[in-house]
């Protein structure tokens, strides 16, 4: 209980710092997710056309995905130094797998009869993609984006190791200075914001699933 009160007091006294790290964190995650979508969704849609491209791309992204993030930082620092840029790159690479995989699955699972009906009515390739395939794949693609976003939000706590700031700053500083109030405040902040984000995006996801629902 004492610990919690300490954390609460810390939080009240250092509001400016809290808001600053949250801003850094959200900024990093939003940009990373945006880049992930911009790269991952088109790539996923593209590789949905051929089995071979699918194997190559999904295979290599899966390998990248299994590398621990600290090892990844170690690899990036000699190339890019420290700061926001390497952190951004790392997050984008982790987010790619769910986005690419879901975009690819979403497109391939559109029923062939539906595609054929659309082609039979005279859609050209672009119309087929944008008026039929993407809308029908969207719930699945969005589920991938949701996974990437939530995952990046918690992964971004590590960004402090590479000097990109974020909520990890508070936790790291708390550990280094044996300041348990600070440590706990940082942990609670990460937990609460992550849960909140998950709830919000979960709500959006349900709305999308409902709107696009193809179930019986």
């Amino acid at each position, binding site marked *: 209980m004492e610990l919690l009160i300490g954390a609460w007091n810390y939080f009240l006294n250092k509001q400016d710092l809290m808001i600053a790290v949250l801003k850094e964190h959200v900024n990093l995650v939003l940009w990373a997710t945006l880049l992930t979508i911009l790269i991952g969704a088109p790539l996923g849609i593209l590789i949905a056309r051929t089995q071979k491209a699918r194997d190559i791309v999904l295979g290599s992204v899966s390998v990248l995905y299994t590398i621990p993030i600290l090892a990844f930082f170690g690899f990036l620092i000699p190339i890019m130094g420290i700061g926001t840029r390497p952190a951004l790159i790392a997050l984008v690479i982790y987010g790619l797998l769910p986005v690419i995989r879901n975009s690819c699955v979403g497109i391939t699972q559109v*029923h062939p*009869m*539906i595609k*054929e*009906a*659309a*082609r*039979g*009515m*005279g*859609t*050209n390739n672009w*119309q087929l993609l944008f*008026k*039929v395939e993407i*809308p*029908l794949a969207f719930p699945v693609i969005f589920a991938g984006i949701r996974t990437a976003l939530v995952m990046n939000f918690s992964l971004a706590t590590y960004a402090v190791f590479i000097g990109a700031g974020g909520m990890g700053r508070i936790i790291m500083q708390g550990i280094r200075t044996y300041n348990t109030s600070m440590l706990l405040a940082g942990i609670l902040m990460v937990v609460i914001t992550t849960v909140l984000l998950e709830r919000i995006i979960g709500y959006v996801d349900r709305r999308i699933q409902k709107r*696009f629902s*193809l*179930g*019986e």
Partner: protein
Amino acid sequence: MTREISVELQKVSKLYGQDKVVNEVSLTVEKGEIFVLIGPSGCGKTTTLKMINQLIPHTSGNILVNGIDVAELDAVELRRSIGYVIQYIGLLPHLTIQENIAFVLKLTKQSKKVQKEKAEELIETVGLPLNYLTRYPRELSGGQQQRVGVARALAANPDILLMDEPFGAVDPLTREQLQNELLRLQESIRKTIVFVTHDIQEAFKVGSRIGILKQGELVSLGTPMEIVKTDDEFVKSFIGQGALFEVLDTIEVSRVIEKEIPLVRENEKVDHTADILSGWDNVFVVDADQNCLGYLPLNTLKPDGSFNKNQIVPLPVSSTPDISVKFAVEKMLWEGRTWLPIVDKQAGFKGIVLFRSCADLLAGDRG
């Protein structure tokens, strides 16, 4: 009457590798007819259909649509100009019924207003209520979705419709209803329809002409009646034993009505010397409103051709001209007579149907 040709296939083949899926098929589809392609699965009927709108490009031969070689046309434009109906799961599940019907209009960038008006017009054409326009396909039954599929194919007002087993996924009762609706609709829209099915009863019911495919080759082509009379063993086994009655069921009895029958007005005399009497045992008595009062056996007439009203034999229970030949034959067999009077509710006495004429339908040109 010259017959316009809407679709013509000239020695069209399709090869997948070494596999000849369609082998030198030649056929013509006349304007306004329902041409049915049928055969066992894997016979190439769907491939043949899809080559017409180039969903599947052909390997060799020529395909002419309204006289123009499809190879010279842009495939996307060609498909937009031809209606395409498949099983009901072909509706786009993320679009409302209105958006589904107007899909082609949207592709060709027609205004929202035109799209809406056309959707409203067509949903009534296929017999669904207007408020269905805002619903999604999954909220409709299979039969209703199939009607939307037909409406959608009509949206761009094409001359030609391609239908690929359109009623294959609905229950038999709904299927029959949809077939009847298609025939009724065709009375007014008069489109050229190429219809693929594996159901021979459906083929006999909707087809003006039928082409039977076997392993990519056209083995038989003709009207349902001609198909039934084919001597080919494959065709015989494919259409089955009951086929004859299936076909008779699709022919309206009005086609075999004897129109030239001896008539006499109720207060006139029968002219014994008239040519029309030859070959007849009876003469039919009509009143001024063209109602038939009954018939007179010729041997009961007085020598001068006059007769008493009480000599008139009343007609047996009459039938309407829209019954099928099959029904008429059954009725004659049941009642043990060789002819049947046909009376139209509006136009009155139309004539009679002879058992012999029904039999002649079959013997017809067998020689």
